[in-house]
């Protein structure tokens, strides 16, 4: 029900092989270990990087979640841009977007 709890899920997932295994085996039940609201839960279940970014997840944990679900670096950057286009500006946290959606500063 909060950015903190959503971030905590991703933190656990990033640092624990055991959590990764439970997530891979059954995403739905894994998300129920955390008090998420519907939007947060669906963002995890759908692997919606753009929505997670807009919800304010810190990129330092989001980028590892992206890698875990098989999203390559260039796609990771693009999905965040697409998320801002679709859902609006980042709502919380420090990892706001300051470049334009069509601006690729590192060429990706």
């Amino acid at each position, binding site marked *: 029900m909060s950015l903190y709890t959503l971030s905590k899920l991703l933190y656990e997932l*990033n*640092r624990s092989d055991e959590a990764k295994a439970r997530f891979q085996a059954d995403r739905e039940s894994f998300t129920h270990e955390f008090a998420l609201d519907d939007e947060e839960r669906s963002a995890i279940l759908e692997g919606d990087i753009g929505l997670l970014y807009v919800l304010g997840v810190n990129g330092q*944990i989001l*980028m590892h979640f992206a890698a875990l679900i098989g999203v390559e670096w260039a796609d990771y*950057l693009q999905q965040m841009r697409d998320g801002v286009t679709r859902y609006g500006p980042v709502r919380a946290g420090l*990892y706001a977007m*300051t470049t334009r959606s069509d601006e690729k*500063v*590192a060429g990706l």
Partner: protein
Amino acid sequence: MTLVYSGVCSHGPGITGRADLADPALRDPFYAAFHAMRDEIAATKPDALIVLAAEHFANFFMDKMPSFAIGMGESYTGPIEDPDWLKIPHRAVKGDPDLSRRIIAEMMQTVDLTYCEEWRFDHGIMVPLHFLDPANELTVIPANINCQGPPLAPLHRAWAFGEALRRAADAVPERIALVATGGISHWPATPDSGKINEEWDREFMRRWVACDKDAMLSYTDEETYRDGGQGGFEIRAFIAAAAAAQGQGTLHFYTPIPIFAVGCTIASMEIA
């Protein structure tokens, strides 16, 4: 015996993880500067290398976030990231809990810190170690300043942490090398990744090389966030390394490499 080396370097995961996407004309001189730093550290024959990083939720999270931490483990492991993603193989790094304990006890005379018998290294430590200790021979003591989850300790406390590190290093018989790792300006892991404020970076490093304490401590976090991005908060690590050395600095390498998401930096400071 004393602090025998103090230096700073970048630690972005792209430095190794996205090496194949980088222009070799930019990348290879940076790697060469890293290797020169390795040789310079080796020449000081350190008994232990303290790597002061600004980690990214590998060990420390907002459930209980220490502003300052130091490792006290027998050994450490890393990277916590997928080794295929970071392109750094997994390794166990040897620590020295007895040395850690003596350093921590002395530092606690003036600063509060969290000691950690368990610590898993993320790219903040593993990327530098990959270059500075490729054969995994060094005894390492990790240290950390929270630069990720605000509220963050003010810059003057990063300075005090560095001063305490120096006093502690001088109080033990071992030879201690210090490498602080981090920013300068960067907007990592966001759509802005690759944005680099070269002017801001060069001004910060001018202050660092001169060990101009007042100028280094004059940045507000609002200014740093605006001009240096969320990654800019990692100047805390650089400031601590300057506080530990307090001599004349030398900027050995600085080049913005956007695919590495950072102005790639290698610098060191005389121990005064």
